[in-house]
């Protein structure tokens, strides 16, 4: 990162002070700091995770972006890279991990699967995109996204962070953040936010079935 990015536009710094002094706003330096010390969570789901490992390894080297520390614990990480197919069996754990992450927190949906279901979308155990449950900041298409595509996505996330205003970010508001309700595994995956809808539809189906049964009886 060079100081040009940190300095607010419109200030002329004398040449002898370049590289030593910078004039900036609190917001700008704050965002700059956040964007360049994102720690991803060491959390791999499927094939895309291997490309994530490749990105962290020597050829692509995440460390150049201040992301070298991949933390296995959600408490110490800022970015959740959802790298792979999200299955119904796994989604309660992912939501729980997300809830455990300290704010500010960001989510990257890496690959087709995490973004919208991917090639396995039609499968009975696959969730059509992690954004059905947790908010996603950046989507990276591809199956799998190559390491350079992932880096491109991470840079996109950094750009997004640098544009954010401290005033309206949810985690700088008063009061604690509401955790996302953890989905329940029943006869199928159940989102607690949709319980009413589920009951309504299944009851309608039951009534329908009953009527059909009666018709068939007659």
């Amino acid at each position: 990162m060079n100081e040009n990015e940190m300095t607010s536009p419109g200030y002329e710094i004398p040449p002898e002070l370049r590289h030593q002094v910078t004039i900036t706003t609190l917001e700008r330096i704050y965002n700059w700091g956040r964007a360049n010390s994102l720690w991803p969570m060491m959390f791999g789901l499927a094939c895309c995770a291997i490309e994530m490992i490749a990105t962290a390894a020597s050829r692509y080297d995440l460390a150049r972006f201040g992301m070298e520390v991949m933390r296995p614990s959600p408490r110490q990480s800022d970015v959740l890279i959802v790298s792979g197919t999200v299955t119904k069996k796994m989604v309660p754990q992912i939501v729980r991990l997300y809830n455990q992450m300290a704010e500010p927190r960001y989510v990257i949906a890496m690959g087709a699967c995490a973004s919208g279901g991917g090639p396995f979308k039609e499968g009975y155990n696959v969730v059509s995109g992690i954004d059905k449950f947790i908010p996603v900041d950046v989507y990276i298409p591809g199956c799998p996204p190559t390491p350079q595509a992932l880096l491109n996505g991470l840079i996109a996330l950094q750009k997004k962070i640098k544009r954010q205003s401290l005033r309206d970010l949810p985690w700088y508001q008063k009061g604690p953040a509401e955790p996302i309700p953890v989905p329940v595994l029943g006869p199928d995956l159940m989102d607690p936010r949709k319980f009413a809808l589920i009951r309504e539809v299944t009851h309608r189906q039951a009534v329908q079935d009953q009527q059909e049964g009666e018709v068939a009886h007659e």
Partner: protein
Amino acid sequence: MSEAVPRIAQIPNLVDLFPDKVQPDTRPGYQGYLVGREHLLEVVQRLRDEYGYDYLSSVTGVDYLPEGKMEVVYHLYKTLGGPALVLKVQMPREDPRVPSLVPLYRGAEFQEREAWDLLGIRFEGHPDLRRILMWEGFAGFPLRKDWREPYFEEEAKPFKSRWPEGFVFRAEDRNPFGDNVQYPPGFDPETWTPPDDEAIYRVLKRASEEDDLHADTLVVNLGPQHPSTHGVFRMVVSLSEETILDLKPVMGYLHRNHEKIGERNTFLQNMPFTDRLDYLCSMSNNFGYALAVEKLMGVKPPERAEYIRVMMAELTRFLNHIFAIGFLLNDLGAYFTPALYAIEERELILDIFEAVSGSRMMCNYFRFGGVARDVSPDILEKVRRLVYDRLPRKVDEMDEFLTRNEIVRERCEGVGVLTAEQAIANSASGPVLRASGVPYDVRRAEPYSIYDRLEFDVAVRYHGDIYDRYLIRLDEMRQSLRILQQVVRDIPEGPIMTGKPQYQVRVPPGEAYGRVEGPKGELGFYVVSNGKPNPWRYHVRAPSFINLTSLVDMARGAKVADVVAILGSIDIVLGEVDR
């Protein structure tokens, strides 16, 4: 050879041996024998004890809906080598019960649980018949032909809505819940009590009262989010102090319904899906599937394609093993240095894959009767440089780096021991089996492609501990390089495809089991065709999945810190475990 000595490659005539208990399977395109379910245990026991069929490779459930039957297919092998003996048990769909083979082969345990989970076939006498890939409480048996998933559109691909109807929609918008879910009619989510994990904890062995009074049993969950489980794998262990009393793997966190989707796909469409099974080794997966379908179709790839295939498969084996070693060391606590060295070599091989097939990981390179693209001379030159010069040097460097290191030896020697008998009974395969002293390699036992013409040794080690499983990977990398050197030396010019590339292949009815020696072990594809463009049954015998049976035997008595290394030494990939 005299008549009395049974030859290895000879399948005994079961009809003579077991009159009225066994019939030959006479359906066209099928092979093997049908056994009545009441005789199954007896027949299999005699085959195992008297005829040397000591290795149960795969257990597959098939739902023959039109005939109203369910079938369980067993593939038995001798660890001495030779072709498969295929046994089948048929049963009415309303009453799917078979005796469990777990008392004879422990390796059947997970596969039978899988058949119960996905097809609802009840295995009587199974010690722990719970769902394995889905969760307890899931409604229905998804692989049954009359079970439909929420996004169900048509029985078979291609779907008409895509073309010619041109009816554009998102699957979510058609579902009343706006998501990939469905519930039984009248279901009320408020009254649902989720079945907890008690079922798992109950079957765990605990310290009994009398042998250790002061030690409580502690149950610990590792995973599914754990840095050392190589993905979303979960182990429940019961501990007495630091020592592992018992261990239960819990899987299915990456169950992507490969087989259900595969039965809807056309034969060719499954090829890119196989890439995503063991996503480190897409080329080997392609190989196994191509072999199975080619067996059914009766085509053979031309000479050059065979060489290319073997070249790709061996490069895959190399990169898988070097990756496995790197991450085994990671599990041992060598934080990332060996893994980084390994990944460098992997990247160089991936460059080759990318240049020939177009993708680093999901190669989708094999076609029925050949391969997708030719290998250009300059890529071949690159391979030559790698296999003659760089990679041998790097294997030696790995060897120098790790083999004699005292910490590695201290942590690995004598830990996680699996005996040869256990390995065979557990249907372990690949490096896990060979590190336990069983020189069984599909490339030699039942050669496919051009392996019968290539010179290489089946690597074998005898201690069955983590250290040997590490060493055998080094050995196999060296053998792979030896094969590769022959291949790049001898590769002929010529076509790379038999016939024209087609997107709709004609596959005659019948069944086929194609197996290859994948980097993780014996990778088998069981494919049933009924003459339609889609397979009727498509089953994967996943080596990582079945090798996990041995995890308990290796871990029992070890310290809890070792279980991480033991798991690393089995080398699993979750895409293949859960499919």
